[in-house]
């Protein structure tokens, strides 16, 4: 008899989602964390969402994950980014109260039946005959389970750098996991090294906010979660400031003392979230760099300075801060640092996030080379769902690139060699116009319901809303009005449908209220949804044709027992890459570097013969 069905190692954003999903899918689950009070910690900035990331949070929510719900309940400043651009790239972002986020997460997990929180550091993962068996903790305890999700974040051989000073740690003030990585390498996993950084934390009472540009939240912010009924309140402000000429001088004078530049750090850092020394060094011509001052919480003065991640020594960090407008007299609560950690390049996992070397073992989050809470959370949810599905004897759950950002991310992970921590962007999604925040439920809620993670109530509410939107679209298409009623430049008596009017870039749904009774009464959020679908219609049709073409290759499954090394006619390079990454379908194969279309054609011919007679399985 095993202790649990599923063990989740790590209480970060990936671990929380994995544990919640597995337990809510009715499997006994243990979340093991080195410090239970730190479950739900936001290790870096106190914000959830952002461009490309807001989409991930809403996708997690539509599948029945918890990140969006926690954020709605602990957020103190909510904003939609990119509102000047089209709805496909509108992205939600929230500042959360760091302490509240942690506490709310812990309470939420404690209320889930089947879920136990276990305090302890895992020392070793034990597999028998290529199948996960149990874990051994540092204190010698053994915990057995049928499946395991490893979501260890930056803890695997974590090493913190502040200037010349190096400290082994998983997060500042917490010990690293020193044996787990070796235990995995013993099982045949191949490790790599990545780095990420975090900025200093400031004492807000010593900041001259009056001189800085204030950034309020949005009044009409749409909650992240389908579970949230109430509207959200902004209870804090963010502020904007900039680096100065002096900042540049300080950084350049001390560049050799940065852990990044002295050569102490071997791991590769993210291009997208560069340290301040990196930014100043690389973009010398740029006179100033934008910085955001973000509140850490309601009952603390602590301020997070977004954009100033650094691994320079403490004294230099202070000089830099004092060179910034509004921060001339600031007190630094804690210096910024860079952290290096082990990760496992994701050619070692399947798109279900199950590892190839060890069955029933799943990897989620930074261990797969990603960066960011949202990326981690999404993987945690997928790993939790898949661990549960497999134990129930069901097929794995995949999302493809045309269905969700989650699908894009996992596909990128399993088809590309990581050169830096992976962060989500909307430009990574080729079917971006179809992957919007407003339509997450249309895309994903059915899966959430299928797995029992979305309750009937939520689903019915969604369905009712969907029907209302469809009916309204239909009505707009056949309701004719005088154009001159809404467009004063139209002088003749021409009529056109409300739908056609709404297609015009300058006309919003709320503008129709002036000429149409029903529009005045229609709920605003549904109205916006109608507007987006009407305005984007032409694009979505074109995109759908692209998606149909994409699906042709995606639906050509490469069976597990298909050995590419036995295929004649493939180039040697292609055989090597295909053997390493083991793509599950021809679409994935075509996205591997080193595989040409000619190789895909050869594979296609061989697959036809291989599957002749047997029924080919469709991707879900």
């Amino acid at each position, binding site marked *: 008899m095993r202790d649990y069905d599923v063990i989740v190692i790590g209480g970060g954003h990936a671990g929380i989602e994995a544990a919640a999903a597995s337990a809510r899918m009715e499997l006994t689950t243990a979340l093991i964390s080195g410090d239970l009070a730190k479950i739900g910690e936001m290790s870096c900035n106190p914000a959830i969402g*952002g*461009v*490309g990331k807001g989409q991930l949070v809403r996708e997690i929510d539509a599948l029945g994950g918890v990140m969006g719900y926690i954020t709605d309940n602990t957020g103190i400043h909510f904003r939609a*980014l*990119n*509102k*000047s*651009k*089209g709805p*496909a*790239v509108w*992205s939600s972002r929230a500042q959360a109260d760091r302490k509240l986020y942690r506490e709310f997460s812990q309470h939420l997990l404690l209320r889930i039946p089947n879920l136990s929180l276990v305090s302890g550091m895992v020392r070793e993962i034990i597999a028998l005959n290529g199948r996960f068996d149990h874990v051994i903790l540092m204190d010698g305890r053994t915990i057995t389970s049928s499946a395991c999700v490893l979501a260890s974040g930056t803890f695997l051989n974590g090493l913190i750098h502040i200037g010349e000073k190096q400290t082994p740690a998983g997060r500042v003030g917490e010990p690293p996991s020193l044996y787990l990585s070796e235990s995995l390498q013993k099982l045949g996993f191949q490790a790599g090294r990545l780095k990420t950084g975090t900025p200093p934390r400031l004492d807000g009472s010593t900041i001259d906010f009056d001189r800085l540009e204030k950034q309020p939240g949005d009044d009409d912010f749409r909650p992240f979660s389908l579970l949230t009924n109430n509207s959200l309140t902004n209870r804090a402000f963010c502020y904007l400031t900039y680096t100065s000429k002096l900042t540049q001088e300080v950084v350049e004078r001390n560049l050799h003392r940065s852990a990044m530049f002295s050569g102490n750090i071997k791991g590769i850092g993210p291009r997208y979230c560069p340290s301040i020394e990196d930014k100043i060094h690389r973009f010398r011509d740029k006179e100033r760099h934008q910085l955001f001052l973000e509140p850490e919480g309601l009952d603390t003065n602590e301020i997070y300075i977004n954009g100033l991640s650094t691994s320079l020594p403490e004294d230099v960090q202070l000089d830099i801060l004092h060179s910034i407008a509004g921060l001339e007299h600031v007190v630094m609560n804690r210096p910024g640092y860079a952290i290096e950690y082990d990760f496992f390049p994701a050619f070692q996992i399947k798109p279900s996030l199950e590892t190839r070397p060890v069955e029933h073992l799943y990897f989620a989050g930074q261990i797969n080379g990603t960066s960011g809470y949202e990326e981690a959370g999404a993987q945690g949810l997928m790993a939790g769902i898949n661990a549960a599905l497999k134990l129930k004897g069901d097929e794995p759950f995949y999302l493809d690139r045309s269905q969700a950002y989650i699908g894009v991310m996992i596909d990128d992970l399993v088809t590309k060699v990581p050169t830096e921590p992976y962060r989500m*962007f*909307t*430009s990574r999604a*080729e079917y*971006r*116009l179809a992957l919007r925040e407003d339509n997450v439920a249309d895309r994903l809620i059915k899966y959430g319901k299928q797995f029992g993670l979305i309750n009937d109530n939520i689903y019915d509410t969604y369905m009712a809303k969907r029907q209302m939107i469809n009916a309204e679209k239909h009505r707009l298409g056949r309701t004719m009005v005088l154009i001159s009623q809404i467009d004063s430049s139209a002088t003749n008596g021409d009529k056109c449908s409300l739908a056609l009017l709404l297609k015009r*870039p300058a006309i919003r749904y709320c503008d129709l209220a002036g000429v149409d009774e029903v529009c005045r009464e229609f709920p605003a959020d549904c109205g916006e949804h109608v507007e987006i679908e009407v305005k984007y219609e032409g*694009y979505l049709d*074109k*995109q759908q044709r*692209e998606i149909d*073409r994409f699906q*042709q290759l995606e639906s050509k499954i490469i069976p597990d027992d298909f050995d590419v090394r036995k*295929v*004649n*006619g493939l*180039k040697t390079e292609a055989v090597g890459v295909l053997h390493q990454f083991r793509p599950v379908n021809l679409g994935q194969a075509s996205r591997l570097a080193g595989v*040409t*279309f*000619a*190789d895909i*054609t*050869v594979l*296609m*011919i*061989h697959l*036809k*013969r291989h599957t002749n007679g047997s029924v080919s399985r469709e991707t879900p």
Partner: protein
Amino acid sequence: MTLPDSDDTIVAISTPPGYGGIGVIRISGKQAFTIANTIIDTTVNISDVKSHTIHYGYVRGTQSGSITDEVLVAAFRAPNSYTGEDVIEISAHGNPQILKQIVSLAIDSGARQAAAGEFTMRAFLSGRIDLVQAESVADLIAAESAAFQQVALYQLSGRLSAYIGSIRAQLLEIGALFEAYTDFPDEEIPRQQKGELLAKLNDVTASLSRLSSSYRRGEIIRAGVQIPIVGPPNAGKSSLFNAILAEERAIVTEIPGTTRDTIAEKIEIEGIAVRFVDTAGLREAVDQIEVAGIERSRREIDAANLLIAIFDVTDDPIERIRSSLFDLMGKYFIVVLNKIDLVSESDLASLDYELGDCRPVFLSAKTLVGVDKLVARISSVMRESMPISGVDTNVLTNKRHFLAVQNAISFLTEARVKLKQGESYELMAFDLRQATNSLEEILGKITNDDLLAEIFSRFCIGK
């Protein structure tokens, strides 16, 4: 349509059907060398010979001790061969019976009869050539003129692919900027950079437009120039047709309406294939067969690049020309006045004066006087009014390529309009991606097996 297997060894006769000085059989695939060794007696073991060597030997007969033919065997080892695989080419005597026997011997030893275009398809699958290059192989074989041959060779060399590839690279660069600004929250492209982007977009669109407009030239280069000879019954159309082709191709009689069908023949002028068509006279038809002939003549006239309108100088030419001009409107045409041997110099001079604005060519199809002037006029009209020069530049000759370029242009035009109107970047990024995809389709980077099967099925067997 499905693609044939790619890991077996294929064989086919690669020279045209019929009797010839020699005939060549090509074998390609892993077993090419072993199969050659099994069916051919040589002093060396063919399995061991070096690449790019030629060996003398005998093809064994079906009965032991008998021989089929005396042959030369050329050996090419992968990847330095036409298909990129091991290739054996057997040069035998050009008797179809012998060649067929050698093929069946190869098949008995494990080879498979190649499908149409399969050798070239393997060259594509082995990555030796891209799709544009593969298509140019079929063109090169079918080329009927020096110009088309040159264009096909140019495309086979990969230079057109490289040009399209360079445009694709520019599109990727522009697209990356739109992508970047889509992902920078709340940032707009600065005015100056927007101007530069617009200029870049214009440049790329202009390059593609030039490429697209080259298709008209490409079509002429590929299909040749169509020149129907039209005119009233008995004006001497068939005689002129014969005079130009300098051979008795059509039946010439005194009875109007003798030519009931169109007869066509090709000659080369200015390096371009020119197809002259002798048409039935356009008059009220007397019988059924003639009606069909006239119908066909109308179709020829519609498809014409240039018309020769011929009139009989003895048969009230001025009135007939005036009444025909309406039919010829909108087309390039040359007015020919035939049978000058039947009228006086002074009559001709006055006709020339009356019809000066038509610049008629006076000739006699019977005595051949003036036919050379007509050919010279045809060449000058082709030079002046048809884009036939510059075959060494990037010319589209393939409709598939033309349509894809058109598609790319229309997406880029969309993007330009949106950029000017200040619309949102993700929409321009979408257009740029679509345009890039169109170009990738040309090169065969994005395609599907149906398309491949269709392209290669247009080849002849043995290529």
